[in-house]
């Protein structure tokens, strides 16, 4: 009789079993042919779509923020008094003279003053409330063609509007429009503004309700010589002087907080699409696993009869399911990388109907695929596929080998 003792020593090690499972699983899913490749394709499509959609959302967020920084926020701002960009009622009283340190910054080309007030324009006889934004035509801090406001001394105050504003008001270059405002003494006044330029911003919408005028003209109109509401600092300044004299420094973290919150809120909806696509792909894997266990119950019984313990069999089926995820990564990478790289290079034109989603949307979306997005999605897909695969596989633990051998399931 063969001694039982010593049998334990001859048992396969965990590593050998893992290798065996991996090898068998690979052989099984490759042997399943078309069934495997259909699953892999669905999973890889979901994988690529998730990254693409999330990349689009991330690209949109970054473009919007970049546009805000380039055309409005610069490297940070000094606000005068109670100035609050979201409360136009504060504009009329929130302007004051620049301190010496701010004036030095402006003279050094490291900042530019902006004067803001509320007013109204009358395009085609209709009244429209606007924010009058006085900027220095010679400034280079904000990426706006402010030099177009230099004017040629002709009739009317030179003015510039954005393409979105032009569309809303029907104004074109060369048009005259009546501008009404209230000066520092509370007296209403009006003048004709001449549209010198219509600026096309990468993010339409940030220009809505905004009329750019030369800083000097607006100061004259408001009777506030040398004053400003905001001083915009250049991007990348190592050191900025502290505020004081009624001026308060607001860094980019502060200035972008609201838009970041909005972006975060808007991003939630993209996670619904993310979840739906993942759900559909996982459903395919789950379905395949259930079918595989039902179809292969005799094989399961055979594996157990040949000496594989049932937890190893569960491991085998789980690894088989997880391998769908692994193959989907490989297949997804094969067609996804060129596809995503192409979309990153060419961008995607946003239909006009989508230009207002509650926040400004760029005309052309350039997706951004961060390492975190790709690795995070990869990890999530792999973990989800493994978990989903293990659910039907865990039923094997309840399967009696004798039933399995007869092709029976309960």
């Amino acid at each position, binding site marked *: *009789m*063969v*001694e*039982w003792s010593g*049998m*334990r020593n*001859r*048992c*396969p*090690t965990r590593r*050998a079993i893992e290798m*065996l499972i991996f*090898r068998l699983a690979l*052989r*099984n899913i*490759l*042997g*399943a042919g078309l069934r495997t490749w259909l699953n892999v394709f669905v999973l890889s499509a979901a994988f690529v779509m998730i990254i693409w959609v999330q990349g689009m959302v991330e690209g949109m967020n970054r473009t919007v923020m970049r546009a805000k920084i380039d055309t409005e926020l610069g490297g940070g701002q000094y606000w005068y008094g109670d100035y609050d960009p979201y409360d136009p009622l504060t504009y009329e009283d929130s302007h004051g003279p620049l301190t010496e340190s701010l004036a030095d910054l402006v003279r050094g080309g490291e900042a530019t003053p902006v004067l803001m007030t509320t007013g109204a324009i009358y395009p085609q006889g209709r009244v429209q409330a606007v924010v009058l934004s006085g900027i220095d035509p010679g400034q280079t801090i904000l990426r706006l063609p402010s030099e177009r406001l230099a004017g040629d001394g002709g009739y009317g105050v030179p003015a510039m509007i954005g393409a979105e504003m032009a569309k809303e008001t029907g104004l074109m270059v060369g048009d005259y429009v009546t501008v009404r405002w209230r000066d520092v003494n509370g007296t209403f006044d009006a003048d004709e503004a001449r549209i010198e330029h219509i600026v096309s911003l990468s993010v339409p919408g940030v220009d809505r309700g905004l009329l750019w005028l030369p800083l000097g003209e607006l100061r004259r109109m408001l009777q506030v010589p040398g004053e400003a509401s905001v001083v915009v600092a250049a991007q990348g300044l190592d050191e900025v002087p502290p505020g004081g004299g009624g001026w308060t420094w607001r860094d980019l973290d502060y200035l972008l907080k609201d838009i970041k919150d909005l972006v975060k809120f808007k991003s939630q909806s993209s996670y619904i699409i993310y979840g739906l696509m993942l759900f559909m792909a996982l459903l395919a894997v789950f379905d395949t696993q259930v079918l595989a266990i039902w179809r292969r119950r*005799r*094989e399961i*019984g*055979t*594996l*157990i*009869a*040949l*000496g*594989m*313990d*049932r*937890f*190893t069999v569960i491991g085998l089926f789980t690894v088989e399911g997880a391998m769908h995820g692994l193959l989907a990564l490989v297949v997804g990478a094969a067609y996804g990388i060129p596809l995503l790289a192409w979309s990153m290079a060419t961008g995607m034109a946003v239909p006009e109907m989508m230009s207002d989603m509650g926040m400004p949307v760029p005309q052309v979306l350039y997706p951004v695929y961060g390492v975190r997005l790709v690795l995070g999605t990869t990890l999530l897909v792999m973990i989800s596929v493994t978990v989903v695969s293990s659910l039907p596989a865990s039923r094997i633990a309840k399967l*009696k*080998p*004798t039933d399995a*051998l007869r092709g029976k399931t309960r």
Partner: protein
Amino acid sequence: MENGALITTESLTKQYPVGRGKFTALQNIDLSVDTGEFVGLVGPSGSGKTTLLNLIGALDFPSEGRAIVIGRDTRELSHREAADLRNHHLGFIFQTYNLLPVYSVYENVEFPLLLLKKSAAERRQAVMEALDWVGLTDKAKSRPSQLSGGESQRVAVARAMVKKPEIVLADEPTANLDAANSHNILKTMVDLNRELKTTFVFATHDSKVIRYLRRKVTLNDGRVVGDEEQVPDPESN
């Protein structure tokens, strides 16, 4: 347990729940099988042959009594220990061959050795030897779907024998085979039994198999109704 017995059953009983009651598939089976025996459990369908084979193979556990296989009471084995017992000491042959469809003939035969963590060289030698026993070395690269029924069962025999187990449990191994193939398979088993001293336990009601047996245990309604030595007579009709 008798001295030298490889398999012993004592008052072995197996019951299955049926509705609110119980169906007794085996009742008080006392049996002893020694090393090198070529024994058959014979009887009509439903007599408990396969159930007894499954209990000996630790694929199922008795309701009462016990089955002692290679010195171990199968009731006391955990699932993992039962798997170890089958892995190291038992070979199975099924009526429907149960070959793994995505593997080649070679890989099917190699499979038990992978579970035993044999080296590649050991596996290769053992697999080729087993395929040689059953005369299928030329089919090593074929898939099960490319084989005839007789060839498939010969692969199953090679798979059961490749690790040279102490016991081979064969459940209706010739039920799907014609007379010529049945004869070939059984002759191979007889040769292996003689050469390797492997104990063969059959569950069968096939007269072709019964003629090869040296001991016939007859079951009826879950009870042993006969246990007799016999002289094999393969050539008789």
